[in-house]
């Protein structure tokens, strides 16, 4: 067993990405592959999973107590990082990336390292688009907003249906709200290319290292933290994915 004590990092810079999303840049970097995540220890509050938006940063949306604390940190504050964890994306050939909301976080390093040809970025509204400017320099970027305030008016799946030749991509990397990802998986499946999809899943995580079992998915009992978080479409097509998940106590709840 390797020592996995949290590495304490100091926040160097806090970048406002959107009204609810901030990037925290640390004083140290981690040896990540795109799609890796970490467990972020917010002292006195909790430890929560977060994707790496770069080797030295996380990008956090405020949704509850831990994320509220994270998004109110200022330079000089310290947090603990365990990781990098997980398998990460393994793209090959022509790559399409599809992100919804902060789902863009694990996909962003993939674009930064030049792996992504086309990027579909969705958000509720224009001001909530994360990394849009950077991504337009790095990829052929297509934007979708639920309210039409920027790009395509509707969901990312609408862009897929109207503007994308799915079969021309060898790998489709996806991260976002589960129902969005489910919609994409259905389309890949209909096109007979579920295996080209790489989906970064979210499940309730406690240990992050494949021991506690809180993040396992039915029916194979795979651990999202260790066997994932990235799964191919054919791995999850006949699973709980898109239907239910489990909360902190292990009780099922609809997604």
């Amino acid at each position, binding site marked *: 067993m390797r020592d*996995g004590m949290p590495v304490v990092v100091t926040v160097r810079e806090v970048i406002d990405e959107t009204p609810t999303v901030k990037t925290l840049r640390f004083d140290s970097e981690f040896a990540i592959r795109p799609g890796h995540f970490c467990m972020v*220890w917010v002292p006195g509050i909790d430890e929560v999973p977060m994707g790496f938006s770069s080797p030295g940063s996380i990008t956090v949306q405020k949704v509850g107590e831990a994320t509220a604390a994270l998004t109110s940190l200022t330079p000089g504050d310290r947090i*603990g990082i365990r990781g990098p964890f997980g398998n990460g994306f393994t793209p090959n050939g022509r790559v399409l990336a599809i992100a919804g909301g902060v789902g863009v976080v694990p996909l962003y390093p993939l674009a930064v390292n030049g792996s992504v040809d086309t990027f579909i970025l969705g958000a509720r509204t224009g001001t909530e688009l994360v990394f849009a400017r950077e991504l337009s320099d790095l990829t052929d970027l297509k934007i979708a907003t639920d309210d039409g305030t920027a790009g395509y008016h509707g969901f990312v799946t609408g862009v897929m249906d109207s503007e994308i030749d799915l079969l021309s991509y060898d790998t489709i990397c996806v991260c976002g709200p589960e129902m969005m990802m489910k919609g994409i998986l259905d389309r890949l499946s209909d096109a007979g290319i579920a295996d080209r999809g790489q989906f970064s899943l979210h499940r309730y995580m*406690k240990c992050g290292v494949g021991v506690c079992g*809180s993040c396992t998915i039915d029916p194979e*009992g795979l651990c999202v933290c260790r066997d994932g978080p990235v799964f191919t479409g054919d791995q999850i097509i006949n699973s709980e994915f898109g239907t239910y998940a489990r909360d902190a*106590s292990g*009780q*099922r709840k609809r997604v």
Partner: protein
Amino acid sequence: MITLLKDQVSVGGVDLDNHLILAAGVLGTTGASLSRMRRQGAGGVVTKSIGPVPKEGHAGPCLIPLAGGLINAMGLPNPSRNFVPELETLSGEPVVVSIFGGTPAEFGEVASWFEGIAAGFELNLSCPHAEGYGAAIGSNPAMVRACTEEVAAFGRPTWVKLTPNVTDIGSIGRAAEEGGATALVAINTVRAMRISIDLRRPVLGNRFGGISGPMIFPIALRCVYDLYEACSIPIIGCGGVSSAADTIEMMMAGASAVQIGSAVYDDSSVFKTIADELYSPDGVPAAEIVGCAHA
């Protein structure tokens, strides 16, 4: 190395496919996860400990790997009665339901939900980091006996899991035996903690917890050895087992079978890995080595 003959295994009334059992709380939160461990070679599985009401567990960090072990304070997260449907696809399998509670009646109530479903019960009288549960009860012989009696009354195999964090584990084992336990499981995690010197605070959300894995193997072995002298029901050795040699050593100390938890961290197929090395057609019968180090 000495190997075992693969044969019928029955411990404390539960029939197992081999001597290697998944320990409570490790990849045991869902039916699917338990099934996976079975497919990956576990001869039997123990579920996450189930309590009278759903619990979310302690705030994180909940588990930290160390060199040589894992330190955790999960705080007994569990879905309570909602765990029942998880076991639907596992009927007939050697699934032992781990139970915790704050009173004998609570133990009995939880057991009643699984009466027709579980191959047996395991009483968690030993979790070292849940106020009022686990070891808080498990260090009191009268309580141990009362809780055991309550669950043993169902007439199903009743394993009692002990804490090493007591002055005399033998007296606790005897209390469980008197209460009708069909086997003892030793041990749960050892009280422990770590501090982040950079943040000047304990690293677990709950401040302290328990340690498992190779670091506690010599401690667990000693508990099994002591219980073998103090009690007469079968003992299941648990704590730091991660190889066929460890399994043999536990059995020589007095264990009829072993439970394995933390070793899944290094190898999620650890059961198969161990079984491949442990058994051979010209192995010795388990009965020949169980407790042989007491000779």
